[in-house]
């Protein structure tokens, strides 16, 4: 007959409550969205108290992408599970991280309810990392929704956190996970995020042409455009990713990115207009959905929302044949405090991680054809050891 000695009984009893407190016994997917009745982050009956509500459900976890030289790279990332019931979302999101993470596109005036569900790392059951969403550059941010774990809250595996943003400011932002930011950002938890201005829909005539879409509330139509694209510069260090996949110590201070990318692809994958085929290692899930090919008809004005979100490098992106006009910087119309116009013409922009610019390409006098957008850091025109590729894409004028 086994008897627990009194010597063990006291610590055991003291320890019992911790067992239950620490265990995520009631963890579940919990979407908060006004007017959504079935938890899929889709508004079923608009809530009259929240007429501008907009909802999205992202999962945070791991997955794979295919690099331009064919290597399948282990990543962390977000996936869009909006429209799925909580049960479906959890299953669908496993090993389905996207690169870049799903683009978040909003309108000024939206009330944005963004639910993040941490689905865990399928290939790394030893990890129990929390995740957050940091809206990089959000003006007048509240710490609780800023995603900095040291200053607020991060969500553990199997549970959801709903972020609330009153979207007051247009511009080109970006988002990423801020938990162990160096690791989770190198691993790929990065995405485009931009807000369209309230001026959209109001016609303004600028240089003889009338526009109804604008980069900012410019008051004169000078940021008007016909087509827009969002491209995020980034890069991966394969040794870091391989170490993560193989459960090895991570080379933080020795990080060296050798896969430069635009929207998660190296050239020539950048000019594929569709999603890339699914990698084999994630069970056949399409994980690279955003192209970085820019196309427009001659005469149209193109708005490029360009951001840089990598961990190690400043990158210069140059345009050959079509001048760039910079009209916005860091999600602000490029004007002085008194309204002085500070737009400028250039052929290249240099961005550190966490910077953005809004570029207008005017194709009025541009001969139809292919034009290149490429990094002038020429060593980054490569996909690791493959020597022609990397951070380059095309602007195709028809």
């Amino acid at each position, binding site marked *: 007959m086994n008897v627990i000695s009194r010597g063990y009984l006291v610590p055991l009893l003291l320890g019992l409550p911790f067992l239950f407190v620490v265990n995520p016994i009631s963890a579940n997917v919990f979407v908060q969205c006004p007017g959504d009745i079935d938890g899929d982050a889709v508004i079923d009956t608009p809530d009259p108290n929240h007429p501008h509500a907009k909802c999205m459900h992202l999962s945070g976890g791991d997955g794979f992408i295919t690099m331009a030289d064919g290597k399948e790279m282990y990543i962390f990332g977000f996936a869009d599970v909006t429209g799925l019931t909580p049960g479906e979302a959890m299953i669908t999101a496993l090993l389905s991280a996207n690169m870049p993470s799903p683009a978040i596109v909003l309108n000024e005036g939206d009330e944005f309810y963004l639910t993040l569900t941490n689905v865990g790392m399928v290939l790394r059951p030893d990890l129990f990392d929390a995740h957050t969403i940091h809206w990089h550059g959000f003006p*007048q941010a509240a710490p609780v929704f800023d995603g900095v774990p040291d200053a607020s809250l991060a969500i*553990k595996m199997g549970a959801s956190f709903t972020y609330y943003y009153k979207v007051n400011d247009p511009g080109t932002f970006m988002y990423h996970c801020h938990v162990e930011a160096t690791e989770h950002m190198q691993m790929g938890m990065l995405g485009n995020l931009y807000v369209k201005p309230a001026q959209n829909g109001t016609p303004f005539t600028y240089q003889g042409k009338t526009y109804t879409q604008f980069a900012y509330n410019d008051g004169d139509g000078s940021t008007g455009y016909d087509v827009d694209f969002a491209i995020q510069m980034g890069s991966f260090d394969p040794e870091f990713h391989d170490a993560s996949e193989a459960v090895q110590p991570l080379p933080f201070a020795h990080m060296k990115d050798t896969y430069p990318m635009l929207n998660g692809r190296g050239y020539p994958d950048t000019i594929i207009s569709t999603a890339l085929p699914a990698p084999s290692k994630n069970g056949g899930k399409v994980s690279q959905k955003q192209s970085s090919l820019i196309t427009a008809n001659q005469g149209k004005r193109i708005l490029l929302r360009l951001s*840089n979100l990598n961990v190690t490098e400043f990158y210069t992106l140059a345009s050959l044949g079509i001048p760039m006009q910079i009209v916005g910087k860091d999600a602000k119309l490029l004007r002085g*405090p008194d309204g002085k116009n500070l737009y400028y013409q250039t052929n290249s922009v240099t961005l550190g991680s966490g*910077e953005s610019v809004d570029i207008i390409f005017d194709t009025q006098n541009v001969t139809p054809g292919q034009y290149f957008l490429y990094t002038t850091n020429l060593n980054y025109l490569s996909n690791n050891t493959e020597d022609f590729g990397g951070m380059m894409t095309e602007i195709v004028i028809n």
Partner: protein
Amino acid sequence: MQSNYVTQKLSMLFLIIGLGWAMNTLAAISGITGSSFNLTAKKDYISTPDGNSIPMWGYANGTGLMQYPGPTLIVNQGDTITIILKNELPQPVSIVFPGQTGVTATGGIAGLITREAAAVSAPVADRTVTYTFTATHAGTYLYHSGTRPELQIEMGLLGALIVRPTGFNASNPTAYNHPHTAYNYEYLFLLTEIDPNIHELVEFNQLNNVDNTAYFPAYWMLNGRAAPDTLLAENNQLLPHQPYNCLPRMHPGDKLLMRVIGGGRDLHPFHHHGNHALVIAKQGRLLESTPGAGPDLATSVFTIPSVPGETVDAIFEWNGADLGWDIYGHQPGDPLEAGEYAPDHGKPIPVILPEGQNLAFWWFLERQSIFRK
């Protein structure tokens, strides 16, 4: 019970923030003021948060301890500044003042860029050099060694120079002589990085083996400390050679002047959370279209690209305007806080926060830093 747990943790968070605000009495950057300074170049060690200690060369204030970075020199525009540098290092050292003109150097020995204080082995008379210049422009500047700068700046021979504008009033301060450069608080952000291999080679007298083509920094510092030591108080006795901290504090509605200096070799995209900041000056020159216009060419950014050798002055403000909820957690009948955005007063937080068991807290960081005395 679980929601109580969250409430309790949140209350603690707000208490910490509140205490931080209540304790904040420092409006100005710490440093040494006046027009005449005695600096001594000497060697000692700094501590890093991983437990390492790194041999450094640095400027000390007079006979004080070597410090990294060197003393922040705070002077007044128009004054004639005299800096007497004495050397206790095994090789000659000097100081150059980028952004200042008409610097004269006397004494010491001749050097390539400027006159130098001779090595500790040289006659005493040669080991002291005097620099004089007139601080003609207000602003934020860097000073550093002009002798073997590829080695000596890495070793720690650098510091910040702040020139207060003509007519500076400490109770109503401005960065430059224009009302649009007014601020309530100012903080220094001197960005540097360290390659510990170089420092080891210097300590073991292997100078000839220093290979700058293999430069690979492994520590990144703000005002001479790496996080979380940046959050410790100034003049902490555990960090005798790193007297400066970097813990900006302000009240909602205040203007916080960021003086950002790229003191190392690398570019750093320096991101401040919370809100945009208005970049009013670079390299100690106001971004103005005509003299006296004020910073009319200023732009708002959420990331400041810090460039080696460049200084940036930016004004940061935050009051949580139009969040759509009351960040203070007020009830509608509660009194307004100073600087509070009134239209959101009393509005509840619009979402349910997860239960405590589903949240990760980074309390260890606070335990290691803010509460460590």
